[in-house]
């Protein structure tokens, strides 16, 4: 049964190797501070602790195999021994084994591929393409988590809005029925560009509640400003996906049919480097 032994060992190598690689990569990401590219920081501690458990556990698993004690009992290796005898059973068996080999190889390729990509490619954020595809303008995306504070702002001029991010403003604008209170407020916000129609674009951030899979784009429409002509604000839309800081004032949306009734009238649009933590939570 050495072939089935070899196969179950190979499966164990794949399993242990991928745990080891993924766990080390997680620890490295945490070390350099980029774990938040993939998951919400509130799960960092849990993730790091169990990754730290996974490293010695998988090394112990490898050591046990190296010392010849590795009865890994891979489920796939010995299935055929319990199949019915007889010609029909055997023929079905051959087909089933072929299917299993194909599926198993495909799974192995995906495992190796994603593991290698995880370690070799530099981590990066989701692109503007995904933001568009997840419908950045939809009213659905209004009250992403944790924006309860926003409503209390209404009517009270004294509230400090300088810490407000794209998510907070987007939520506030969509929740508000009386938008006159907001018009004229000065904002300075950073996000990436999702181009819109004729000179406008959507200043976008992804909001993450758990991990990048659930990333929801939130955004504010930015229209070119008409006032001081200090550059940037007039007409030219930055390229899709570029990170920019927009300074301007909230204004009523000139397009009455649009979902959002408030837009940012940009006085100044500056291209900036991608922030260290590109997501909001």
């Amino acid at each position, binding site marked *: 049964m050495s072939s089935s032994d070899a196969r*179950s060992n190979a499966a164990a190598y794949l399993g242990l190797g991928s745990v080891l690689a993924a766990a080390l*990569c997680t620890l490295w990401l945490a070390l350099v501070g980029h774990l938040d590219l993939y998951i919400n920081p509130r799960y960092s501690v849990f993730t790091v602790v169990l990754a730290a458990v996974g490293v010695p556990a998988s090394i112990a698993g490898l050591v*046990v195999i*190296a010392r010849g004690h590795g009865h890994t009992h891979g489920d796939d290796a010995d299935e055929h021994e319990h*199949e019915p005898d007889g010609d029909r059973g055997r023929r079905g068996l051959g087909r089933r084994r072929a299917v299993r080999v194909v599926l198993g190889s495909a799974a192995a390729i995906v495992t190796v591929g994603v593991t*290698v990509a995880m370690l070799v*490619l*530099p981590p990066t954020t989701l692109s503007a*393409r995904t933001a568009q595809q997840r419908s950045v303008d939809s009213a659905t995306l209004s009250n992403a988590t944790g924006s309860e504070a926003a409503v209390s702002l209404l009517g009270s001029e004294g509230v400090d809005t300088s810490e407000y991010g794209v998510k907070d403003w987007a939520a506030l604008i969509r929740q508000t029925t009386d938008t006159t209170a907001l018009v004229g407020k000065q904002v300075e916000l950073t996000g990436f560009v999702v181009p819109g129609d004729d000179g406008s674009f959507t200043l976008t951030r992804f909001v993450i509640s758990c*991990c990048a899979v659930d990333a929801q784009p939130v955004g504010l429409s930015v229209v070119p400003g008409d006032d001081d002509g200090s550059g940037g604000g007039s007409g030219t839309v930055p390229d899709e996906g570029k990170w920019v800081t927009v300074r301007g004032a909230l204004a009523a949306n000139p397009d009455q049919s649009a979902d959002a009734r408030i837009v940012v009238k940009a006085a100044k649009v500056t291209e900036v480097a991608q922030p260290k933590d590109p997501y909001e939570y």
Partner: protein
Amino acid sequence: MTTTTRPPQRTRSLTGPGLVLLVVVVLLGIRLFSPSIGTTGLPDVVQDFLTLAISVVVESLPFVVLGIVLSIVVEVWVPVGALEKVLPQNAFGRRAVISLIGMLFPVCECGNVPLARGLMMRGFTPAEAVTFLVAAPILNPLVIISTAQAFGWSGWILPVRIVGGFVVANLVGWIVAAHRRPADLLLPAFEARCRAAVGAPRGLHRWRQSAAQFGGETATMMPALFVGAGLAAAIQVAVPRSTLVAIGSNPVLSVAAMMLLAMTVSLCSNVDAFFALSFASTFLPGSITAFLIIGPIIDVKMIALLRTTFRVRFLVLLSVVCVLFAGAVGLVMNVLV
């Protein structure tokens, strides 16, 4: 079990494990000496696919590790009979108690698969293990707290999620128990492994056994996890979310849409409430509840993981029962609440 036919000699091999370590170290070296962040020039679609797949892996890996560790504890370290003594004799009562085990082991769904395997290798019947598997990702303290944080203690969503999870788990457990041969729902290899493991004398080398078990379980679970992550990411990249979200206000279609969303996004049940919250403004509460019931039980990542242990016919049964149940709960809530 190959052990019965295997020649007695042990193959001491350093090459395999050494090679694995070498590859991992080389990859890690590349990681350490390449820029820590940046773009690679890959097309956006490929890049986003990889980012999404990696994020599912990073998110799920700790739960899978925790699940495997707990399954090793249950299988290797908890004394024979210790668990069984506290459980009621009556089958219904037994399953009802088992569906609350998740309160003690707060593992979300991807960690529950290895734990359920560990329980079956201890001698739990498939019906009991399945009851645990369906109930635990909903009936556990972390999930209840995060759902309460998202939706508040008042209102219908939290109680219906808790009660619904309990009922559907016991319903599925009852159906499996009523099956002519419940063992037929398991993959033959796994069933044989259970038969061999139950009642077998405990080894003296518990640590060695634990390490070997870790190797065996990762061999089964990791490829499934990566495939599940790949599928979830591929669906995310290929299907625009707006097509699903567009039908939020229709009482019937919105239930279907939220259930489809839950099954494709493949979120961990500990955090899915926060995600669902962002849809609360446009979707009816019944649809949100259907999302919260079906998501922890069935999604593309979970199906890949369950496939390591169960036959396709069980997965079909589970999907049909749970989709009908969650859909019915959602519709009733949409009409009544």
